[in-house]
């Protein structure tokens, strides 16, 4: 019982962080599935959502601020795609990736400018930030809400991709870009939709994540962003259930490592896991095997 009581907070925190990672990882996996691009700026979009919340909640009531945050983040994701990735559609993959790194640099520097380099205190969300006690472990309510909300959103997204016309178009584009275009699918609008969904989920993820962490800095998107990408690779990039499972595994492992007192290595562990996965099973848990044509 004492073991449970000692380790339960870490496991709970792990599940909660895993859910937040899952919401971000979906953005990576969907974009990679369609554009074959590691969207390095996605972690910074997530950070930007946190910043929007900080600035908007200072002057607006939460009921207005939260929807506005979601809207602004979606707009940001959409604009980034249109401005930085669309002009490079026919360029080599490396230039698009460099453009993504450039956007990430730009977003971080903008955040630095607007915050003056100080960590901003994240507003308390009234119901989510309350503390609750489960089985003797004290935690915030957001810890319990996150996995549930994540699952609901993921199931919704899966249904959307499976049964709607837009979802079908997305699957077609990710299978074969050129053929999809020949079949009359508006590739550009499909890509925009992907970015919109990814940014929306990242915004929800940021609401949950920063409620737990209490402060936002310009660089606070970098590490979670990379970890979520690792989660997406772990689950098999392009696969949504894979990304979710990968994110939960990474979130839980990371917090168990923290619980063991190896905090320095909680980040390093994620990358070690990535390297092992890439060497043993490069396609990840649920990824499709791609064959190179000569």
């Amino acid at each position, binding site marked *: 019982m004492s073991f449970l009581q000692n380790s339960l907070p870490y496991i709970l925190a792990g599940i909660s962080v895993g859910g937040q990672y899952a919401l971000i990882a979906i953005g990576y996996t969907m974009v990679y599935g369609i554009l074959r691009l590691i969207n390095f700026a996605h972690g910074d979009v997530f950070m930007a959502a946190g910043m929007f919340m900080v600035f908007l909640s200072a002057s607006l009531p939460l009921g207005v601020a939260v929807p506005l945050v979601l809207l602004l983040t979606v707009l940001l994701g959409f604009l980034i795609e249109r401005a930085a990735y669309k002009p490079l559609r026919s360029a080599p993959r490396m230039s698009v990736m460099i453009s993504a*790194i450039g956007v990430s640099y730009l977003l971080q520097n903008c955040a630095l400018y607007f915050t003056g380099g100080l960590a901003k205190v994240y507003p308390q969300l009234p119901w989510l930030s309350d503390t609750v006690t489960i089985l003797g472990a004290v935690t915030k309510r957001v810890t319990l809400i996150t996995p549930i909300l994540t699952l609901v959103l993921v199931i919704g997204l899966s249904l959307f991709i499976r049964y709607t016309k837009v979802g079908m178009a997305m699957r077609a584009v990710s299978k074969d870009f050129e053929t999809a275009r020949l079949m009359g699918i508006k590739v550009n609008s499909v890509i925009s939709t992907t970015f919109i969904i990814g940014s929306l989920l990242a915004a929800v993820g940021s609401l949950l994540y920063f409620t737990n962490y209490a402060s936002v800095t310009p660089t606070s998107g970098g590490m979670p962003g*990379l970890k979520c990408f690792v989660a997406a690779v772990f689950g098999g990039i392009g696969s949504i259930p894979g990304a979710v499972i990968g994110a939960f595994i990474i979130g839980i492992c990371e917090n168990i490592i923290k619980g063991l007192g190896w905090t320095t290595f909680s980040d*390093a562990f994620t*990358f070690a896991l*990535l*390297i092992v996965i890439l060497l043993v099973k*490069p396609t990840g848990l649920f990824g499709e095997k791609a064959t190179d044509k000569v």
Partner: protein
Amino acid sequence: MDLRKDKKKDALCTAVALTGMLVVLLIMELTMKSTSILFTVLKKGVIYALVAVSMNLLNGFTGLFSLGQAGFMLIGAYTYSILSMPISVKMGESVYKYYDCAIGIELGIFPSLILAGVIAAVFAALIGLPVLRLKSDYLAIATLGFAEILRAFFQWDAMGPVTNGANVLRQYKDLTKVKIPFTNIPFPPTLFCFLVSGICIAIIVLLINSSYGRAFKAIRDDEIAAEAMGINLFKHKEMSFVISSFFAGISGAMLAMFQYTIQAAQFKTAMTYEILLIVVIGGIGSVTGSCIASFLFIACNEWWLRFLDESSNNILGLNILRSGFRKVVFSIIIMIIVLFFSKGIMGEREFSWARVRAFFRDPFGARSRKARKAAASEGGEP
């Protein structure tokens, strides 16, 4: 015959220009105040030029998209500062406050510099064994991951007796401790940076122009074709990776010399991104481009755009200019370059005397344009 003569003439021109540059630098150092921002920019610029060229060797000439440069610089910087720190400092309380120093040897500046590169290269060889089997973006993310692991490792408490944990290292032999051999006269620090970086870059250029360099380019252009021509892919990739890391290690060591203090927290992925942006601005696959771009990048970052950060420069009472605005403007410039001038300053070309001569003969292509127009108006083939 004529070609060989031209080549000789070009080599002579380059040698004269480089010596001239070093002499001017020496004169500047002897006459100007050493605290001038110009020297800071020159020193940092040339250090970044070295690491940018080493990254270009990987990304531009071998086609391996690696993002591990900061990690290898970290190894170089730490190796250098630990090895070159005087024994008296190591045994005292001023640096290793919380730990007992485990490494009780002290080396001179040059052995430490070279060992910094060697240790970085050894790590690269180990990391390269598994990682270089991966393709493009997977390779990028795996090398990025390794750099992060290295950083965590160097900050680890258990490594404290060697790396001083997450604390700073200082009082090692920095740039002011460089002496002219066999005398006690301090060596001009900027000149020292230029000499070391220059030699390293020259070695990389020689490598690129050798048969190995041609093999690297073949791998970049088409892996399968290169393999079919009998190039051992893994051997050459590993070689390029190790050599690039060697020089990244040396530049890390020089950065440590330049900064007087070093801390693992500084070598984040953001640093690799900056180096990558330098390579892109200069032109992927151009050594001279990387060098020019690194000076421009550092000068903009540290010097020319400083006025944007001064709130006293605001006009019309607008409060736009304040700390951090410089970086915003700077990153917008970078985005414009990435989006609209994706070839960078030099593209894949190198600086060549032939082009300079052609420029002086025909500035801005005005004459050849006129000639072409005349030919077109005569109805001939353009």
